[in-house]
């Protein structure tokens, strides 16, 4: 039945854009009102389906940016040759409707707020989106799990959720590394994530630490391999790859 989501089944539903917010150049958060949304876990994604007037259909997956219990939101980075992201980041307005389905994925999910095991989050570019959901979930549940977020971005203006990330304390450490351009007087880290950087920043491998790594494919491959070299068991390194775009 059109417009009716059966709980437990993945069906397309119409969501209304509640608000849009620019996060960084070519990056926009889209807050949705989705009456049939059954709720989600931190780290999951959803599919967006756009249908053109001539019937052409394009589907893309986007990580959910909001925490469980919050209204569904996605954060989308515009890809220059993209079919869907230019529309979502430039054309879409509050009140517009899009089709979504989800939540999707049970693998790249953090639902361990009750445990004391430290959490390592590593983001390349817009790979920070599902990790932001995890951070918000941690805060909303009053979890005391120690978290380190290592976030690799091209430059400071490219950092998504910067104000929010700067506001985290109490067991959350956010470490930026800027790969291409640093502002004058930058005292933070510079360059791509390396074994040496992870040796300093990652929790010791023995602490039952779980790592979540998300970003462009090359970033994820490199960081995940480094963590395994540092002694992290592969099953405790959860990965999600966004593809070759969005170099960090």
């Amino acid at each position: 039945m059109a417009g009716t989501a059966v709980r437990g089944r993945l069906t397309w539903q119409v969501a209304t854009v509640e608000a849009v917010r620019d996060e960084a150049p070519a990056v926009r958060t889209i807050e949705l009102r989705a009456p049939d949304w059954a709720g989600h876990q931190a780290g999951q994604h959803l599919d967006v389906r756009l249908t053109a007037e001539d019937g052409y259909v394009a589907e893309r997956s986007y990580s959910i940016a909001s925490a469980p219990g919050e209204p569904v939101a996605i954060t989308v980075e515009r890809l220059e040759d993209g079919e869907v992201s230019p529309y979502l980041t430039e054309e879409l307005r509050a009140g517009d409707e899009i089709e979504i389905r989800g939540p999707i994925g049970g693998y790249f999910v953090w639902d361990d707020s009750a445990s004391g095991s430290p959490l390592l989050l590593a983001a390349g570019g817009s790979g920070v989106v599902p990790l932001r959901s995890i951070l918000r979930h941690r805060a909303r549940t009053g979890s005391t799990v120690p978290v380190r977020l290592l976030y690799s971005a091209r430059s400071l203006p490219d950092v998504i959720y910067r104000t929010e990330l700067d506001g985290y304390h109490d067991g959350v450490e956010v470490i930026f590394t800027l790969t291409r351009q640093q502002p004058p007087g930058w005292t933070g880290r510079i360059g791509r994530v390396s074994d040496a950087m992870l040796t300093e920043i990652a929790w010791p491998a023995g602490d039952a630490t779980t790592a979540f790594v998300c970003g462009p494919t090359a970033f994820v491959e490199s960081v995940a391999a480094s963590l395994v070299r540092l002694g992290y068991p592969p099953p405790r390194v959860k990965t999600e790859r966004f593809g070759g775009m969005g170099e960090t």
Partner: protein
Amino acid sequence: MDELDGNAIGGLLEEIFGVDMTTATGTCASCGASGPVAEVVVYLCAPGTVARCRVCTAVLMVVVRRGEGSCVDLRGMAALAPAPA
């Protein structure tokens, strides 16, 4: 072509199998490696999707959308077991 991973076909596989398959364990028929479907190498090339083994690069799965349905070739998988509910 973009190299993604099994997370990217979570929706497609759930549409076909009816449950989340990113946490399912797949076993490569070529090399015997096994691991979560989320970790396989995925190429999206609509209407077809190809999944390859991260260890030996053998084709594990091909999914082609046809109208309302999908054609699924699983010859490259020795086993595909959903995670216990």
